[in-house]
């Protein structure tokens, strides 16, 4: 049922020429996906997809749409070749599915080989009820480090691509007022919600060991809170609370914290990211390690998301000013 909804949304996206609608639909697509992930027992993934896919990515798309034309130009695209490629890909995929283990089959090789150890032993080896967190932060902690670095790399990319000089900033700010100065109801409600959002982010950050959640989701929610504030109260006010340079430093700091934990492990005699050595008791060491690296993840993700939003918004301000 959900899958059919998804298919419908996707087809609608191909047909629409209005990019604004396309972006909204893709947000809906993400949200539907999140529900589907939930249905497939992937709570952490659902949480991330909802906050990242439906939240931040839609937001970034909208921020871009403010800067570029809203309608797709109807042009003669070359559907024949594209359709050909797609059909070949599809044929290969369908062909590949023929020998797949069936959906939900408990005897599939996936459930026989590596995963049982995570499910059976992680409680003794890592000591967290949320197996996803154990695998994410400890067994495959290095992948997660890589992923934080990917986020950092994207942050660096956007920072370097969308730079606005200090001079333009100073001049533009005096001329361009914040968009939503007059939305009184919005501002009041946002003021009520903001502390709660931030507290919720912290809850997600530190409760990730026991339930769905963790650094990524927390980082994104925290960033969402700040972004909400920025949208309503204007860039200049936000930036006097949170210095952009400071946020940029924070993006780096999260990565440093994460990889620093690994290096400390090495100095203490373990392998890289082997948290066992962090404390006299391995399980305790694991706890400490996971806490720290999740914090690193949260800091980098939040800082990068905030920076992304700042950069896009500055670009908009600059454009307005230039006009």
């Amino acid at each position: 049922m959900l899958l059919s909804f998804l298919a419908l949304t996707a087809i609608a996206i191909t047909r629409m020429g209005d990019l604004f609608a396309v972006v909204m639909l893709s947000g809906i697509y993400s949200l539907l996906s999140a529900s589907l992930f939930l249905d497939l027992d992937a709570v952490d993934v659902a949480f991330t997809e909802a906050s990242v896919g439906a939240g931040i990515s839609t937001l970034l798309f909208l921020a871009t749409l403010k800067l570029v034309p809203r309608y797709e130009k109807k042009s003669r695209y070359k559907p024949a070749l594209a359709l050909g490629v797609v059909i070949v890909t599809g044929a290969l995929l369908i062909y590949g599915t023929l020998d797949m283990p069936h959906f939900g089959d408990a005897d599939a090789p996936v459930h026989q080989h590596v995963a049982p150890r995570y499910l059976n032993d992680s409680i003794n080896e890592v000591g967290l009820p949320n197996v996803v967190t154990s695998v994410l932060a400890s067994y495959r902690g290095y992948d997660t480090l890589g992923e934080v670095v990917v986020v950092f790399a994207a942050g660096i990319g956007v920072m370097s691509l969308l730079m606005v000089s200090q001079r333009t900033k100073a001049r533009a700010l005096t001329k361009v007022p914040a968009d939503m100065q007059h939305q009184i109801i919005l501002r009041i409600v946002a003021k009520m919600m903001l502390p709660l959002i931030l507290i919720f982010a912290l809850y997600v950050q530190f409760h990730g060991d026991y339930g769905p959640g963790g650094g990524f989701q927390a980082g994104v929610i925290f960033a969402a809170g700040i972004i909400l504030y920025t949208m309503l109260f204007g860039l200049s006010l936000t930036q006097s609370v949170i210095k952009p340079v400071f946020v940029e430093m924070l993006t780096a700091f999260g990565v440093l914290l994460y990889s620093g934990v690994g290096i400390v492990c090495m100095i203490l005699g373990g392998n890289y990211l082997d948290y066992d050595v962090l404390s006299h008791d391995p399980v305790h060491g694991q706890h400490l390690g996971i806490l720290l690296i999740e914090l690193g993840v949260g800091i980098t993700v939040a800082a990068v998301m905030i920076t992304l939003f700042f950069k896009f918004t500055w670009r908009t301000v600059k454009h307005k000013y230039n006009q």
Partner: protein
Amino acid sequence: MDILLDILSWILLISGSFFTFTGAVGLFRFPDFFSRTHAASVTDTLGAGLILIGLMLQAGWGLVLAKLLLILVFSLLASTTACHAMAKAALKSGLKPLTYSDQENSAEETTSKH
């Protein structure tokens, strides 16, 4: 007592679903943006609200109840504000509500709410 709660909660759930459904129908059938917003906000407030209360009755005392309560509070706050902001933005960007002269009398009551 349990049966009473059960019945009550089912009544709430069903009426909630009904409002959600009418909201969806309204979204498609209403003539202009503002009346459609009205339909959509019915889904968010009355529909979702009743369903959540119904669920709360099912949940019994505990953490789940608290969580549902929080969800209710937040969805009431957020969705109404969002609807308001949307309508205001539409008005600001130059979209005028339909009036008598544009449409038969049915449009009037929905538009005047905003």
